[in-house]
Every structure is written in C-alpha cells, then in structure tokens.
C-alpha cells in the first residue's frame, strides 16, 4: 500500500541530492589527486604521459585490481580482508593448468571456477561459523599453497591451448584482455553492491552485524557470498596469468597479498565495513600502479619503491580516518 506514486515529497528529493553531492565531491577529489599526480609526474618524465605507458599502467593495475575489487566484498561486509588470496591464486593456477592440459580449455575453465566457488564457500562457512577472518584465511592460505604444491608435484605445469593463449595475450581494440576484464569486473561488482539485494545485505551486515541479524538478514549467507566473490575474482586473475604465460607453478603470486589489501585501503574503503564500493578498490589499484610506474621510469630501487608504497598505505589509512572524524 505504500507503493503509490502520488506521495512523493520534494523535501526528500532535496535530501537525496545532498547525499549525491557528497558522493560526487568524493569522486571529484579522487580524480583530482590522480590528475595532479599524473601532471607533475609527466613534467618530470615525459614518457610517463604517453598513451603506451597508460596501457602499461592499466595493465599493471589489472591483475591486482581484479583481486582487490573482489576483496572489497569482504571489507564492505565487515570481514576485513583475506590473507589467502595469493595462495588461492596459486592453487587455482595449478588447477587450471592441470585441468586444461587434461580436458581442454572450456572444461578446464568450468572446473576451475567450480573449485574457486568451493574454496570460497569453505572459507566463508568457516569464518561465518567461527569468526576471525584473519586467522581463518591465514590457515586456509597454507592449505591452498600446500595443495597447489602437492597437485603440481612441485614442478611447472605447462599448457598448450590456443584459446588460453588468446585470452592471455590478445588486445581487442588495442587494449589487453586483462584490462578489459578488469574494467568489466569493476563495473559489474559496483552494480552488485549498489543495485542488488545481495549488495545491500552485504553493506548492512558490514555496517552493524547485530542489527542485520535482528532485521532477519542471514549473516552466514552474506559472509559466504563475499568469500565466493573474493575467490572467483582471484580465480579470474590466476587464470589470466596462466593463460598469458602458458604455465603454472605452486609458488606463483608469493607475497602479493599486501598489494591486494593496499589497493582496497588506498581506495579508501573503511576497514570497519558497511561503507565504500568495489569501484574504489579499482581506483586504489590504478593509483598504486601509477605510482609504481612513475618510480620504475625514474629508476627507483625496488627497496625504495616498497618503502614508498607502504608509506602510501599508512597515509591513506590515516587520511581516511581523520576525514571520517571530520564528516561526523
């Protein structure tokens, strides 16, 4: 009975406009930071602003970005992040390589995604049942990495599939497939969080899990689905990597977990949950890639690059913390 159109109130529309302006302001702020950085960097090193280099940056951001986008579901749902992404990536890479070399590309792809969903469910149900995502994913990470080594017999698994090779190296309309998939993931995941019931449930559970449970939402379902998203995203990244190099190994992506988490944090997604969007994780990944690229072009040593990216994450956390205090 509330679904009658005639009781629209103009005051309510004004209110929603205020909220929209707030979002717009945040987006503009983010873009300004990036443009300013790109301009300054472009002056000091002209290579930085070439179109080719832009592709390099987006491509570099793609792989981390896809995982960060998927990881943002966990953060938004109030489950912080997973420390198992890199290990899961290695396991998925090995599974994809093994199944593709045995059954061919299409069946291999399907089986791999099946395994990814199962891995997500296993983690999600564990976390939903026993709490702490950090400890649980740390343990699962070891399981995944170990199983990847077992499955691959600790050696390189090679594949020979033209379809996979196309996926890994093609450039439709001059843009690498990885970048297309990265942008597609960002859009789809943004739409899921913003426009679907599941997305709203994810936000509400992150905002206040007790109120979510009291409102009759299923926390275990939301947590599990967030882990499934995270696992599927990781699987997409791992498959693209195997496709590109036609091989997989159990020690792939070693030490990448911080990069994924850094992208989520630099994107400004609150660790407390219930706020933010996967699009922010994508922007975070691009920002870090820009910085990395600039430092590479200017010959910064790897140690210095690492220091600076770490410092950026610390700065990002502090700035967003202070800003949140101000807004309230």
């Amino acid at each position: 009975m509330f679904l009658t159109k005639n009781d629209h109130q103009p005051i309510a529309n004004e209110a929603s406009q205020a909220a929209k302006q707030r979002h717009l302001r945040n987006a503009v702020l983010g873009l300004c930071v990036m443009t300013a950085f790109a301009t300054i960097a472009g002056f000091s090193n002209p290579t930085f602003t070439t179109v080719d280099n832009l592709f390099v940056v987006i491509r570099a951001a793609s792989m981390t970005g896809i995982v960060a986008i998927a990881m943002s579901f966990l953060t938004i749902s109030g489950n912080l992040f997973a420390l198992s992404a890199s290990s899961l990536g290695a396991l998925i890479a090995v599974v994809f390589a093994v199944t593709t070399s045995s059954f061919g590309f299409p069946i291999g792809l399907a089986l791999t995604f099946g395994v990814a969903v199962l891995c997500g469910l296993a983690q999600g149900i564990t976390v939903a049942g026993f709490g702490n995502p950090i400890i649980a994913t740390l343990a699962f990470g070891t399981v995944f990495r170990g199983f990847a080594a077992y499955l691959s017999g600790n050696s390189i698994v090679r594949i020979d599939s033209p379809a996979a090779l196309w996926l890994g190296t093609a450039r439709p309309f001059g843009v690498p497939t990885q970048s297309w998939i990265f942008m597609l993931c960002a859009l789809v995941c943004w739409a899921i969080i913003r426009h679907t019931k599941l997305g709203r449930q994810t936000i509400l559970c992150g905002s206040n899990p007790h109120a979510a449970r009291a409102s009759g939402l299923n926390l275990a379902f939301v947590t599990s689905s967030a882990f499934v998203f995270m696992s599927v995203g990781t699987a997409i990244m791992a498959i693209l990597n195997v496709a590109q190099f036609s091989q997989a190994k159990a020690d792939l992506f070693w030490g990448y977990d911080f990069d994924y988490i850094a992208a989520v944090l630099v994107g400004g997604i609150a660790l407390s949950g219930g706020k933010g969007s996967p699009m922010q994780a994508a922007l975070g990944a691009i920002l870090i890639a820009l910085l990395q690229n600039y430092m590479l072009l200017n010959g910064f040593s790897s140690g210095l690059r690492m220091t600076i990216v770490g410092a950026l994450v610390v700065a990002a956390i502090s700035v967003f913390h202070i800003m949140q205090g101000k807004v309230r």
Partner: protein
Amino acid sequence: MLRMTNIIKKYGPTLVLDEVQFAVEAGEVMALMGENGAGKSTLVKILAGLEIPQAGTIEIDGHTKHIRSPRDSHAAGIGYVAQELSIVPSLPVYENVFLGDNTLGILRTPRVLAKKAKPFLESVGLGNIDPLTYTESLSVAERQLVEIARLLSREARIAILDEPTAALSDAEIARVKSAVRTLAGRGCAVIYVTHRMPEVFDLTDRVTVLRNGNSFPALETKNLTVDTLIEEMLGRRLDNMFPARSDGLQEIKLQLSGVRGAGLRAPVSLNVRRGEILGLAGQVGSGASSVLRLIAGTIPLAEGHMLLDGAAFRPKNISNSKQAGIAYCSDDRKHDGIFAGRSVPENLSAPALSIISRAGFLSFGKERRLAEYISSRFGIDASYFSRLAGNLSGGNQQKVALGKWIGINPNLLLVEEPTRGVDVGARAEIYRHLRELANAGLCIIFASSDTQEVLGLADRVGTFFHGELVRTMDAADATVQQISKDVTHATEAMA
C-alpha cells in the same frame, strides 16, 4: 559567572544551535532541558571543549575564553561529567578521583593520594568507601559520585552533569542529588541536563529550555509546574501522554502455554489478542523481556508450546519469526536496532529488502516510497532522509528502529523498552503510533521497566519478578502502586 552569547553550531547544513544565549551564576543549579535533538548535549559539549562552535562568545567572570579542546575547558575551571562515565574500573578509587590531574607531581604513593582523596569522597557521601579499593567493585551510582568527587578535587567552578541519573534507581538518585547540592553549596555553578521532572523541581534553581536549537530566557523553577515546563519544551500543549485504549475484543493471536527458556524460572502462560497491547512490567532481569525473546526466537524454548493463529509455532531464529509476521525490537537500539553509518531510508528498508527488490535487483523508487510511507506513519521528518541514522537524536533513532518493521507489514510486534532514552514529546508520539498500529489490527507485546508506561499504554498488564510471571490483569483495573509492588516484592503479592 558563565555567559554564552550567540552560540552557533552547524553540522553540515543542519543548524543545531541558532544564536543560543545561556548564563549561569555561581552557587546555582541550572537545569538544561529540551527534547532529544534540541541541542542540549551539543551546548554542554561546547563548554567541555568536545565541540567547537562556528560563532559566539564564552565569557567566564567577564573574561572571554576560547575553548577549543578539553584541556582549555579544564583550564577555564569547567568540569564535565558525561553520560557515558569516564571512570577507569580497573584502577583504584583514588586514581579515578585524580584522573587527568597533572599537578600531583611524579612522586605519588597510593597511601598519600588515598589520604588526599578521602575528603573529596566524604563530601559526595562516599565516606564509607576506602579510596584504595578498585572502582569496578562500585555500583553505577557510586561511580557517578566518584566523578563528582573528581570535579571537587579539581576545584571546578562550573560543573556540567549530563543526565547523571539516567541509569539509577530512586535511592541512588537521592545520593547524586545531595552531592550536587554540595557542589552548589561550595559556590560552584552547576549545569544539570536531565529528562526527569522530579529532579528538576527538587534540585534546580532555574531552568533554561532549548527547543530546536533556540534558547529561551531562563525561568525560575519555583514559578513552574510540570505541565508548564513540558509546554515550554514542546512549544505546544501536550494534551495526553497516552492515547485512548481500544475497545472490542478480537480473536486470540498468540497463546503461550507453560513456556520457559533462559531468564525464566517458572513456566509462563499468556494469551494476546489481535488489536491488543500487552504490557509486561518488570525490572532488568525479571524475565519480562525473556518472554519476547522466546517468541522472537532469539533464545530457545526449553519447555511448553506456543500457538500462533491456532497453529503450533516454534521459531529457531529471527528469520523464522520474521517469516511468521513477527517483528522484534530489542532494548538496545545502538547495538542492534539501527545501522548508524547508513542513511535513514536504508535503515527503514533493511527488514523489507525482498519487498523493494525484484529478481534480486533493488528499486530505489520503491525504497524511497517505502521510507516515505513508514515516515508518514511514524512521524519521521523526511528532511532527515539524507542524514546517517547515527546522527539523529535518540527519539528519532528509536522511531527508525521501531518504524523499520512497518515495512514487512507484521501482525505481531514485540518491543523491549519502547521509549528508553526518549524525551517526553517523542515518547507521546511513539505511544500514539503504537496505538494506531494496534487499532489497525496489529498485536503488540512490549516489556518495560517504566511502570507508568506499562499502565498508560497497555490494554492488559503482566507483571514479572525474578523470572516469574506474577499475574496478569486488565490495565483498567491496575494501579501504579500495585504494579510497582508486584515487580519488586513478588512474594508478598503472591501470598
């Protein structure tokens, strides 16, 4: 002594204090009153240095003071006792008396400090407490008194007490009152924020009323009555706190036969009809709210059975009871009643996501119309829609916490403490809306420790003591004295 002039405070576009004037003299107790959201807390937080106003001046003894941090506030001789106590339970009492005092020097032995703390404790009526005991062994009222002792030790010249008695019983309130008199007797200007009428008339010399961020000239308490004070706060007459009861009996909605679960020591049997409001009176831990939780499915049924519309009903969790058309609102809205970081419409649609979505996709148009529908039924101002629920006043938060359930069209509403921390005006509104819902056929069961509320709102009353149902009676036949007696001295009442 203290004079605040033309204080302006905005949160974003919202004007919270609009050129507020406020003044207190030495040795007087000034009540600061107003509905939730009127700006009381903001005003005292400005004095405490926790909020910084956009404009206005603060003068103490004719000297302009710039208070931009709690440190400035201390230095200006202002002491602030917040609603949420700032006591460290794991420290001894004397440490809490001198907490934040940097003048004590480096050499501080417990014995010397305890001796120093003793007179301050004595003057707030805590002479029987050894300053060396740990604060966690003290009651809430005693901790409150320790905070007042802290104000004395700092020689605060202006003391601000923000709802010091909200969580206290009558006997404990008396102790706080006498400590406040001690403060004023020493020449301290006391600013006393409260919702409780008896204290205002008992304790304060003058009253300053804030309404929608506007201040009104202070009034002499002795020239006021409860009714005129409520009118001042609301800006209109409050005709009737409680709405008229319903008439006409309808069919039985829910039947409890010998049910027992955590928090109940004896089986409970109750009936409730459609269109009826059943009030369960009882103090904290009496078992009144356990009955609601059993029906909502948040605690398991140990024995007995329930019939809902004549069919056996045994919910395992909230989702179960929600599917059966039951809505449950706990007594702690901050904990599990609202999503503080999300907007009002997002809060209101939370239990009704299936209704505002199709094939898994949300319709923002439907969400907005749902929010508008609930707001019109529950008196929530649509101009709050862009605000985060956590930034609303207590009364509006409670309306959101209750109102969100209207979206699922429930046929049984369970509410614990429907008006905890809600001011007089919003309280009357909530009672009226609940009664309107009951008149529309909804069955409402609420649990409350406020005897007046149970008697005024309910059609039928059940009294609880110590995990047992003492008796049920028609509200028309019950009196405040009888209910109070039931919920405190059950053995006498049952004999």
